[in-house]
């Protein structure tokens, strides 16, 4: 029965998030709870946290672009992104995001997933362009404008998740390979990458359909008139 005790750490985690405590407190408290209940002493748990934190520092690398994005914003980059789209009559938020979804999947499939992302492309380019396109489709209020920006971020996520595994040298492929190797199941990275393709296609189709539905919702809103 005692090996169920550390599961209380998961309970702490889920409750903490559900009750909207600050995640920066919830996460270490959940980790320490789990560790202590599993019989580690406090110093061991803290050392474990320190080691894993240190090993995962590569996550911070994309933020290196912020000084460039920031200085360009000061000179009007976001306003310019919006203005460019306002000149394309055929551009709708749905079509624009479908195009970006395709680009994001392709670029990730050839191993260049780190070249785009929320700081690199979504904040300076995709989000302001999406809002500018939507502004022309229907009158927007602030919640809707925020939902369009959230869609820009979501499209980036869908693109990278269901593109990157087609590339053979990505971390998740290595992880799958190593996990199965422990059972004497030897796989080539190419086999794993190949079987990521069907899901990539379905992800593109499903998410594109949703983006076109967003266009239709905006058209409906326009017909309903500006009073809404």
């Amino acid at each position, binding site marked *: 029965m005692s090996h169920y005790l550390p599961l209380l750490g998961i309970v702490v985690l889920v409750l903490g998030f559900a009750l*909207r405590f600050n995640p920066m407190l919830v996460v270490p408290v959940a980790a320490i709870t789990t560790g202590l209940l599993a019989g580690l002493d406090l110093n061991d748990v803290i050392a474990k946290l320190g080691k894993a934190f240190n*090993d995962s520092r590569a996550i911070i690398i994309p933020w290196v672009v912020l000084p460039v994005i920031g200085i360009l914003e000061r000179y009007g980059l976001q306003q310019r992104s919006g203005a460019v789209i306002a000149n394309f009559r055929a551009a709708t938020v749905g079509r624009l995001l479908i195009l970006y979804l395709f680009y994001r999947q392709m670029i990730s499939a050839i191993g260049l997933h*780190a070249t785009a992302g929320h700081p690199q492309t979504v904040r300076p380019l995709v989000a302001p362009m999406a809002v500018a396109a939507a502004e022309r489709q229907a009158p927007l209020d602030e919640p809707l404008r925020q939902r369009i*920006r959230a869609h820009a971020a979501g499209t980036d996520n*869908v693109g990278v998740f*269901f593109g990157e595994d087609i590339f053979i040298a990505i971390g998740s492929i290595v992880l799958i390979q190593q996990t199965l190797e422990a059972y004497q199941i030897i796989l080539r990275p190419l086999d794993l990458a190949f*079987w990521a393709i069907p899901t990539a296609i379905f992800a593109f189709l499903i998410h594109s359909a949703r983006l076109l539905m967003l266009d239709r919702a905006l058209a409906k809103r326009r017909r309903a008139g500006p009073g809404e």
Partner: protein
Amino acid sequence: MIGLQHVFYLIGALFAAYALLSLGDRSNPKRFANAAFWGLVALSLLAGNRLGDSANGWLVIGLSMIGGFNLLGRGAETTSEAERNASGKRYGNKLFLPILIILVTAVAGTLIYLYVPAVHATGWLEVNRETFVLLCIGVLLAILFVFLWLRPQPLAPLQEGRRLTDAVGWAIILPMMLAALGLVLRDTGVGTTIGGLILAVIPEGNVLAACFAFGIGMALFTILTGNAFAAFPVMATAIGVPVLIQGYGGDAAVVGAIGMLAGFCGTLMTPMAANFNIVPVRLLELDDQNAVVKVQIPTAVPLLLVNILLIYFLAFR
């Protein structure tokens, strides 16, 4: 050879500059906390490998205290919307050039380095870290271009970088905290326990039910931990290998590859995947903490179902 360590030195110096500039920002009422927070991040990047696990652990606790008790603040905006509008008209589409410089350096640079034998033979980039290094080089080139063209004040790029970094705040390091949590969950056997519980509820002999248990288990465990990488070893050990591959003779490559992607559907649905779902909320200044998760769920749910059916039809064809 240029590699990850050099990248960390560069970004560590960047965060050290943010810490110093925070200290001098009188428009931010919480400037000392900001300075301490970005200073600790800089310390981790510059000297993390020399600190040892324990010191790194206390550094993590320090960061979580400052971030967790909402001690971080923000300074005043540097420009107004009207000023940026006017400036955007004046400089026009040339403003995209620096971003293009970064993208081209990273994309074309990586492709050339990997696929032109003469360039690859020089071996001056650390294996598998090429894009990271080239991204940094692209940023430096873009900054150089901005200085030659727009002639901003010398500290302006750092101040603007700090403005955006402050806007995102503690969410920048939350993904690393979650990675640390994932390791603790793995090392304490929590994953294996959950896998055992799932195995107990699926009916024996039913391949489709086993596929559903595997796919939904991957998604659920990913939702709880925020990381499909944490879910995969657990679900592979519990169901993937013993039931689907060894029990029913499923194709291991299909079960592995699509199982991982079923986990990614879970990543779309959880605030625990902070890097993807919380960080952009801060970066795009959205009011609802779960705004990104909410727009992703209607894609994630049907895609999870598709993944489960793909495993069923492709692994047992």
